[in-house]
């Protein structure tokens, strides 16, 4: 059996567990859709790299589905904001139709990004570099470890420290 068939059969066996994962994350109403989305990815996307444990691979795919769902929400919000901006411009010659203009999401996002950057700068250089290599240069934990000449567990510790600090500083 090749790897993608193995993944498909593992998916069928673990379907209920994956559904339970999404139910715990977003509630039962949306969970079924997300399992379906995961199924589509298993069926249509080529397998990247070696699959050591098909079940763990599927859970990681679920994690990616959750992240992509957030990304889509964000770009939808950005599109809505752009639509409002353009439509406000259209009435700019007359009066503003609406008195309380909705807060500009793009400005808020940019402000939060500035705070993330400032928070990152608080951290010691090795922690900051670990975060950047993994997050922005796409290196895996073990590649970052090799790059910096440290252990993989130290890379994970640095990643945890960076994220804890960012989230504490920037908030929700």
């Amino acid at each position, binding site marked *: 059996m090749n790897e993608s068939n193995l993944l498909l059969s593992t998916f069928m066996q673990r379907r209920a*567990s994956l559904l*339970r*994962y999404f139910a*715990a*994350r*977003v*509630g039962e109403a949306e969970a079924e859709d997300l399992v379906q989305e995961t199924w589509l990815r298993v069926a249509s996307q080529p397998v990247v790299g070696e699959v*050591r*444990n098909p*079940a*763990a*691979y599927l*859970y*990681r795919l679920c*994690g990616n589905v*959750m*992240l992509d769902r*957030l*990304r889509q929400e*964000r770009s939808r919000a950005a599109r809505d904001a752009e639509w409002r901006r353009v439509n406000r411009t259209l009435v700019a010659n007359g009066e503003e139709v609406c008195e309380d203009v909705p807060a500009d999401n793009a400005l808020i*996002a*940019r402000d*939060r*990004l*500035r705070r*993330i*950057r400032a928070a*990152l*700068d608080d951290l010691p*250089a*090795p922690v*900051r*570099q670990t975060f*950047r290599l993994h*997050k*922005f*240069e*796409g*290196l*895996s*934990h*073990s*590649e970052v470890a*090799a*790059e*910096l*000449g440290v252990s993989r567990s130290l890379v*994970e510790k640095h*990643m*945890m420290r960076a*994220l*804890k600090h*960012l*989230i*504490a500083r*920037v908030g*929700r």
Partner: protein
Amino acid sequence: MTPTVYSDAMRDEAVAWFVRLQECDDETVWLEHQDWLEADPAHAAAYSAVERLWIESDDLPQLEAAEPAAEVIELSARRAARFGRYRYWLPAAAAAAMVGAVSLQFERGSGETYRTGADATRVVALADGSRIVLNRNTEVTVHLARNRRAAELASGEAAFDIRHEADRPFVVAAGGREIRVLGTEFDVLNDAGAFGVTVRRGLVAVSGTGGTAAARLPAGTALLRPPGARSDTVSRANPDDAFAWTHGQLVYADRPLDAVARDLARYGGGTVSVDPALRDIRVTGVIRIGDPATLDRQLEQLLPIRIERHNGQRAIVPARH
């Protein structure tokens, strides 16, 4: 649905789970994570907050490209790193200077040249574990030296999947510009005056032209300069579209017909002109790469156009009614 109130301790637990699970190959750890999620509904809320921060940080490289103030700090980070084993990305301005200083030097006769004709693509596996896929009508020369790796894209298009090596950066020269990478995957187009770089993974620095600063492209962005244009356009892009040709497809999402015509010329040879009346057409669709006649037929089915052939030259004109 889920309560958004969670303690600092829960937040720290959520971060630990997030990092642990990123590259976790052990199903039992995932099942423990499931137990943690179900133990308290606030756990899921805390975990989502970590994910949101993770996604928000995606845009940090764009912010730093737009507001280079923070790069002063990066410079000092680099200075500190010189004593350690860290490597670091140069800030944009310094990168531009550096690109000038280390311009590619191909010793004559050294390096391996790979070419493709109009009928097939070619995959080249390099000794360092990197991989280059050559599109049709493409020529690439590769030179792997002890302290640096270089490739020159003389013409055409190629997708690079570069294996990360700490001490040997990989530099691609194309269209008089240089693209510096660490470990990353990106597509470079250098064809008939059009230049483009699309990044799927990692971070790439593209040197400027005429003394302008280098552009830093994070994953999911593309830099494009159409023929005759005087400046680059950097936009968000779906890398899968740019890489589609590597599995035999051309994918267009709202692209001008001129860009499609350039692809037709590249895949079918000869020149392809576009009737001025069609200049405003934007193309969205998928085309399977094949011989010129097949390409033309698919395009004629997709768009209100007709392709006329004359002495090896093709002209895209409005369809007859």
